[in-house]
């Protein structure tokens, strides 16, 4: 009996990177309105250049970063929690970030400061939720109880969700609509300037590299705490570091794009199915595939603009595609001999 046919990790990584490149070019070439790339290249004063440089390129790069961050954090959370259903939002960061951002949107003075204030509010809310979950889930010896961590995360998300619902009932209708669009996950945010993108990139790269350094320890952890200890890996320390770095990734991603669902669930599953569980390969592969997936999904919502006369939040499309795709993957995995 043989398992599902696997790809050589370098080949898959190469294909993911190539697809990411292709989707980036696609998202720059075709969008909500027609654009002539030659005009954009040759005429610096043209509207085409403005749309390309100030709108499409920054937006697609932001999408790539967020997609990579969500996929990588989903992968590592699933590994340390030994739970395939763990997604980046399950540990409470979603609720915290949503409440942080919604609070800023609800307070007129803070809302006047625009997107940076909302992003900061969401980032702070996400980190606070993680800190709270961490505090509530620690055992007597300071060890993290994964089961508690998951359950407390679910409770935090539910409480925060109720608080957000309350906020939506007390603010003006337009403000409630603004909150709804943000909570559904969108890349049509104000994060466009090179400095803002660079800041997000630096934070994500730092957390990503940190996780990559932990890849061998993550592999050891898949053998269980005892097995990891035999291999010289401190499971408590590794888990703590993974959660910290992963949480940073999620909080940063949510703060600039709201809650984009399913990317962090479906991409790690698909990648593991194709190339196995070696984190030295799955981490970069998830980063590339997640980036490619979200860039493509965001291109989809922009390309559908002429049909619906609206840019749906990209989180709607990732959920509509990701939900059935996840069920299909699950079905295929169970059917595999």
């Amino acid at each position, binding site marked *: 009996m043989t398992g599902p046919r696997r790809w050589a990790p370098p080949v898959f990584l190469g294909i993911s990177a190539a697809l990411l490149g292709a989707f980036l070019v696609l998202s720059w070439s075709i*969008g*909500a*309105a*027609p*654009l002539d790339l030659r005009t954009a290249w040759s005429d610096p004063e043209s*509207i085409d250049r*403005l*749309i390309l440089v*100030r*709108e*499409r390129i920054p937006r697609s790069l932001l999408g790539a970063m967020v997609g990579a961050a969500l996929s990588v954090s989903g992968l590592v959370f699933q590994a340390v929690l030994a739970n395939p259903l763990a997604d980046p939002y399950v540990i409470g960061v979603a609720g915290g970030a949503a409440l942080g951002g919604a609070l800023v949107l609800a307070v007129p003075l803070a809302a006047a400061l*625009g*997107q940076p204030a909302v992003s900061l509010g969401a980032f702070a809310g996400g980190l606070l939720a993680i800190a709270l979950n961490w505090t509530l889930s620690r055992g007597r010896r300071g060890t993290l109880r994964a089961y508690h961590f998951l359950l407390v995360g679910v409770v935090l998300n539910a409480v925060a969700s109720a608080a957000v619902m309350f906020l939506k*009932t*007390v*603010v*003006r*209708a*337009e*403000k409630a*609509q*603004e909150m709804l*669009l943000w909570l559904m996950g969108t890349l*049509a*945010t*104000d*994060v*466009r*300037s090179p400095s803002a993108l660079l800041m997000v990139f630096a934070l994500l790269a730092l957390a990503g590299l940190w996780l990559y350094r932990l890849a061998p320890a993550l592999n050891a952890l898949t053998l269980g705490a005892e097995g990891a200890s035999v291999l010289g890996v401190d499971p408590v320390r590794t888990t703590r570091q993974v959660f910290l770095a992963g949480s940073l990734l999620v909080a940063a991603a949510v703060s600039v794009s709201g809650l984009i669902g399913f990317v962090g669930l479906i991409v790690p599953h698909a990648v593991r199915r194709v190339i196995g569980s070696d984190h030295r390969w799955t981490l970069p592969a998830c980063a590339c595939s997640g980036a490619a997936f979200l860039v493509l999904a965001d291109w989809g919502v*922009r390309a559908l*603009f002429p049909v619906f*006369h*609206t*840019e*749906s939040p990209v989180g709607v499309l990732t959920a509509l595609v990701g939900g059935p795709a996840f069920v299909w993957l699950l079905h295929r995995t169970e059917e595999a001999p």
Partner: protein
Amino acid sequence: MSLIPNATEILFALGAGERVVGVTRYCDRPQEARGLPRVGGILDVSPEAVLDLRPDLVVGSPAVVRGRFADLLDRAGVRRLALTFEGPDEVEPGIRAIGRALALDAEAEALCRDYRRQWDALRDALRREPPLRALVVVGRAPLVVAGEGSLLGALVRHLGMENVVKGPLAWPTWSPEEALRARPDLVVDAVAEEEAASRPGEEVVPGAPGRVVRIPDPGILRPGPGFPAAARALVQQVLGGGDDPPGSREDRR
């Protein structure tokens, strides 16, 4: 380019309809606006679609005409005007601002005068001592009512009536008991057509005192040049559905 339905109505009322190059998918008044290119909703605007239509001026909500979108418009040399239309008081400043931006000041002033005159007539028709106490219902199950901070609350105030719903919330949810205790003279049924149709024959607030009038024109939810006309249909019902109240179309001739 108008990114607010209220502004679209104003642009057409000022006679600048032919200069409008794009609108939102909610801009359905006047009829001519329906054929114009759509660039999104009120909040979910596509900057690409806006710039592609090469507007000189973009009128939008402050929640949209800001940040990166405002930056894009500035870089493209497009003037921008951020306006809100949250109540009848904001229509005249909006008309004047749009008139100024299009160099149609005289037309804007005339439109404002007409708008003000229509409201004055409606207020005169409803003048009572003490003022009529109104409860505006926008949802039946649960019972959602219009507070003082809402558009319909502002309309009630603007017509010289008293809103029985106090407090800072725009759309609070009430128990039927509170509605009965408020003892309104008038229950304004502003429940959406779909919800009303799903509960045929059912009272808006079972057992509540006061006359029930139904908001007859959805235009009443959009403060703009057509706002007083929509309100007039409501006032007509309050007065008993008889003669047109002062300020009606015939009266203005």
